[in-house]
């Protein structure tokens, strides 16, 4: 199974070897970190100093610069997990398991942040921290799914077996999310025909879009860095577990 004994390989199977994957992606870590910091500095400067008030929402529009990127990440991370789950089930790609596991806590954190900033945005604009509207409710359900997946990871002793089971659940969740979204929308319009929050809000001026885009990229790159780092840790953790098992066998007198 060592990498040297197999003569030629595509990049695909080369990154399939965890040690190789770490060796290949470690040099990416620092440049990406620097990029994240730069994007955040730029984004925060735009968001807090160099953007006007919105004519309707006033200064609370600034909350949007952290709310929208985290809300995007809440869905993007799930997409990453779903793709990894597919990779784990279909191609049995070892890095897919690792990616899936590393992404779950990050996804949960960003989803929680999206809800948190959303409710802080909602208080001044709608006058309430929480509204059972379609968007917020389905984000809440998404958070529950994330946390359930984390609980599932922690419940398994054998992480290799866990990966396949959780991959199945992740995909079921991915199929189910649109259904949840639809049903929640139906449910909320049933109870309150006039929604307080229009999805297609007023057209955004350019001065708001700039900080939004910068923050959007900043958060996405932040996720990539953290995800990569967590994947490296996970690879090491698996090696630790293998070594510990070996230590128990080796020490058997």
């Amino acid at each position: 199974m060592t990498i040297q004994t197999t003569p030629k390989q595509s990049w695909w199977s080369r990154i399939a070897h965890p040690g190789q994957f770490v060796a290949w992606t470690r040099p990416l870590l620092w440049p990406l970190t620097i990029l994240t910091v730069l994007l955040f500095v730029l984004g925060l400067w735009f968001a807090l100093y160099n953007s006007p008030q919105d004519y309707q929402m006033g200064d609370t529009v600034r909350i949007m610069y952290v709310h929208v990127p985290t809300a995007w990440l809440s869905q993007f991370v799930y997409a990453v997990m779903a793709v990894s789950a597919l990779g784990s089930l279909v191609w049995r790609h070892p890095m897919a398991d690792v990616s899936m596991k590393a992404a779950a806590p990050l996804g949960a954190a960003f989803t929680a942040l999206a809800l948190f900033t959303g409710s802080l945005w909602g208080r001044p604009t709608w006058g309430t921290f929480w509204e059972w509207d379609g968007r917020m409710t389905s984000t809440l359900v998404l958070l529950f799914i994330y946390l359930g997946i984390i609980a599932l990871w922690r419940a398994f002793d054998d992480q290799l077996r866990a990966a396949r089971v959780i991959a199945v659940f992740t995909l079921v969740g991915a199929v189910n999310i649109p259904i949840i979204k639809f049903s929640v929308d139906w449910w909320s319009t049933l109870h309150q025909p006039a929604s307080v929050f229009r999805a297609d809000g007023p057209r955004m001026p350019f001065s708001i879009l700039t900080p939004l885009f910068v923050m959007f990229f900043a958060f996405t790159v932040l996720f990539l860095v953290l995800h990569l780092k967590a994947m490296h840790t996970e690879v090491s953790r698996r090696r630790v577990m293998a070594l510990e098992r070996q230590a128990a066998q080796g020490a058997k007198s």
Partner: protein
Amino acid sequence: MRAFSAIIGRELALALRGGGDVLTLVLFFIITGAIVPFAVGPDKALLASIAPGIIWIAAFLAMLLGLDRLFRPDHEDGTLILLRHAELPLPAIIAAKVIAHWLLTALPLILASPILAVLLAMDFSAFWRMVLSLLLGTPALAAFGAIGAAVTVAIRRGGLIAPILIAPLSVPVLIFGTGAISATQSNAALLFLAALSLMAVALAPFAAALAISSAED
């Protein structure tokens, strides 16, 4: 005293290190509470009026769900038998386990309750009364739960029986717990709740110890 804290420390280490028991219970608590609006509709006035009841029921169910982890793993791997020859008497050991159980199953729920309070549109004063009533009432739930778990520990697949046994015993906790939030005589209800908890916590270790030592026979 060292033995007492060793038991609590071990229970905490076991729960925090693996299995995700605590996270699961908190999730169950939040989800149970958050699912009610889907059934009754998101009308804020209605939700606010039933919120104390929802939160107490969610806490009650979550604590019942966690009962099985109190004695069963220790029974299955033989720890429970060995603990009977410890320096501490069995009721003291069970008291330590009940304290750890409360720290692991009730305290996280109380810490998570602000989330449900926001979701269910509770107002601020009702929220504080609810935290107070949970703090006073959950020790009684943990103590009653210990009795139920002890009685069913020797039964294979007894996990489902304990909640059925415990639910009727805990009705007063529920009555005074929700009463302390909404009723007009809420201070009296809080006092009743505190008395109930004190009594249950004082008696439960002895009852549970008796049940465990007779179960093995």
